[in-house]
């Protein structure tokens, strides 16, 4: 496989390739996110396959993951970005891939990540007055089976 990805991160401070083999993963600092995503889209990653988050209470951060796919080269690329757990705010990618609007609503619903520039930031699955973010590891409510247990 070509090494375009190493060239891609060469000029970006704080960007690194993660050890995962497939799909290849790229960790970006928050300020570089939007610019890099625009460049990746221009490079042929025309499909935003999926967007998810992973909670990391020890590291006090939430990791966001985007899975990009190019229908030209068939390549998959995972882009990661760490946000502080207290006030997670990420830029919305809705302008680049319209599907991000709904994927981001899911992450907001379950992890409480806010997206700046999002046109319609509402909960996706739960009721509007639901309290808390269920997929965070410290989430508790009255009917959870094993409260607090990871």
């Amino acid at each position: 496989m070509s090494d375009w990805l190493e060239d891609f991160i060469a000029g970006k401070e704080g960007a690194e390739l993660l050890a995962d083999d497939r799909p290849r993963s790229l960790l970006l600092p928050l300020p570089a996110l939007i610019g890099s995503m625009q460049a990746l889209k221009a490079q042929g990653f025309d499909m935003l396959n999926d967007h998810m988050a992973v909670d990391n209470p020890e590291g006090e951060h939430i990791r966001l993951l985007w899975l990009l796919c190019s229908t030209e080269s068939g390549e998959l690329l995972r882009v990661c970005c760490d946000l502080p757990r207290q006030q997670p705010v990420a830029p919305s990618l809705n302008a680049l891939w319209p599907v991000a609007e709904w994927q981001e609503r899911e992450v907001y619903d379950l992890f409480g990540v806010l997206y700046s520039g999002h046109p319609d930031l509402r909960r996706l699955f739960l009721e509007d007055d639901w309290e808390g973010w269920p997929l965070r590891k410290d989430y508790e409510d009255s009917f959870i089976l094993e409260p607090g247990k990871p």
Partner: protein
Amino acid sequence: MTPKTLTLQDLLRTDFAPGGGTQEYFVNMGPQHPATHGVLRLLLKLDGETLRQVIPVLGYIHRGIEKICEHQTYRQIVHLSDRLDYLSALANNWCVTRVVERAAGIETNERIETIRTLMAELERLQSHTLWWGVFGMDLGAFTPFLHGFRDREELTQIFEDTIGARLTMNYIQPGGLLHDLHKDFAPRVRAWLKDFGTKVDEYDRMLSGNLIAQKRLVDIGALSGDEALGLGATGPVLRASGVPWDLRRVRPYGVYDQLDFVVPVGEKGDCWDRYWVRIEEMRQSLALCETLIENIPEGKTMLVKPAAKIRLPEGTFYEELETPRGIFGVHLHSRGKDMPWRFHFRSPNLHNLWCITKIAPGARVADIVAMLAGLDLIVPDMDR
């Protein structure tokens, strides 16, 4: 500045239509509407009978499966995956199995992979047969429903013999298959395939050429290839829009790399193209099954101890495959325990659903039923 969050109530504003002077209004379609096949709720903003906006409201069957998965072993998660898209139960099993096998480094043999591929293709036929029947019913033709279910029933019984379940089937497991094929499996499948070959043509004669069906499908809900890609559509919906993106072809898994098949692609991406792509897929799957059923090699069907605990190394793993409705993906984030730290499903139906927000505005209320039928949505898979 903290981004602003909204509630559904904030969206329920109506206005006077531009130029016309008539008042817009909202109508709820669902969550208990026969054309939404489950509990999908669509809020329709209407001006007379013209759709101005469609707001899908989800969550009526949200079970928190991703949260439940964090407390299950990897073998148990396989059994949850078929509660998502119950018409692609085996494909979902297979995807979870693949991600676990790859993370754990479990190798399989040719027999296991062939049977998995055969089962996935049979299920594609089973799913598309049901879709065709229900599609006809949504358009107001009741006969296709009876024919579709009649032809599906025999296949369901064949699955039941081997697997033991009719709907939420569990057969594909990490390390192999739950058990070997039933002794009557091959002869019954051969007989069914022979019979079904004539049925697809019958479907074509019965519904495809029908003038009412044509009028309700052609040029309704057109979606260009770029729009479909941007909206995250996959499967027949994307291919109907002219993008030949089929994981069985572009990134083969199972034994698809040894098989010869055509990927049907539409032109305009309207409801008719989505219909036609699925009908052609049935023909392709039929030919694939006919090849596969004659070429099942000998060998074991389970290569690891069935009760063994699977412990995965640390890391984030991802696998995806082509279900009857599009790309189903599984993200697995492991911290080295026998249960995942985070488990995420990439749902094909959730992504296909959003096409409706693009294709519906400007159409009539009756058209939305044809559009939904063409998207072939399974609600439990969206809500998870």
